[in-house]
């Protein structure tokens, strides 16, 4: 299992569209993904779960990936967050 802390830098944080993009990528991989913020840990393949975090700009998220393709998935997710979800 690999973990990484990432800070949200896009304007809207994990709003509907960013959350959808996040879960879309997460669902394409076999590895399991969990996201945690403030002690709440959810399955990142569930869009409702991701939105429940209500993570806004500046929030620090902990990503945990576990499975055969964990590194590739982690890279993709971090890339998405660092590129501000390609939106703003």
């Amino acid at each position: 299992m690999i973990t990484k802390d990432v800070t949200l830098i896009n304007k809207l944080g994990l709003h509907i569209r960013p959350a959808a993009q996040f879960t879309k990528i997460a669902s394409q991989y076999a590895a399991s993904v969990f996201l945690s913020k403030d002690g709440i840990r959810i399955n990142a393949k569930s869009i409702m779960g991701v939105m429940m975090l209500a993570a806004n700009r500046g929030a620090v998220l902990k990503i945990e990936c576990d499975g055969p393709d964990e590194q590739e998935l982690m890279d993709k997710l971090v890339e998405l967050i660092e590129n501000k979800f390609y939106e703003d």
Partner: protein
Amino acid sequence: MDKIQVGIFFQDTQSHLKIRLANSPKGLVRDIPNKDIHRPGLALAGFLELFTYDRIQVLGNTEIRYLRSLSDFARKESLQKFFQFEIPCIIVSNSNEMPPELPAMADESGVAIFSTPFSTTELTHLLSDYLDHKFAPSQIVHASLVDVYGTGLLFTGRSGIGKSEIALDLVERGHRLVSDDVVTLTRTADNVLIGHGSELLKHFMEIRGVGIIDVGRMFGVRAIRQQKRVETEVELVDWSDEQDYERTGLDEHTKEYLGVTIPHVQLPIFPGKNITVIVETIALNLHLKVYGYHPAKEFGRALSDSMKTRTQLESYLEKDFE
């Protein structure tokens, strides 16, 4: 949760405990680290060994009467010793009038002091209820919780297997949705597992291909509920020819959440299979078992009876020489 901020506690309980803040809001930033309550009569009288200072301190008639009976000097001394400890907050019951030093000295030590019209016994009951609930161990699971014929069924399984679709189908048939996709489980003091949704997600749900829908708005108040005891887990799994599925119902499988054991059913699914009806059957079957009727065992008994009768008859006929 392992602690609650006094300010949050005040916000949550203000109306039903009828508490009001009797000094400055300075003490609201402190944390309550313990779910127990303490009446500090002995501590005020000077016996400070084993003083459980890290609990909410409730001052009832006795404590206030005692403080009032002291001389000004002795009262100050008693309170000084009392406030040396890191007390989360104080509640005075019966709307007792406080000696003037009490709120002032609490203020100096940064301790919030509240007053309530409830008697100490009433206050203790209400307070314990609230604290038990807040300090109950909890866990978030990726699942959907639906009340089916009064039975709380927790649907689990890999994402995309169709938990939300089954929940929606059940709602269509008159059952009630507690939460979809994210369920928070808590364990109550008497070892009951309770599941509820989140404040934010309420009864919103994601249906693949459609998007986000609001079940409460679509189906009305009959289709939703806020929380439900979790009675059985139904794990949805992809059908596999190699896997052995339960055929008789004689072996009961269980799963544990927060130390509470609940029955666990593994349900293989494939397109075209009517899961909803099976799920309703699971709920009704559970009802029968609760009422003492176990269909698999009952059938087993009937089968043995029939075998016995047949053997008796056969041996009778065998020896029936004429």
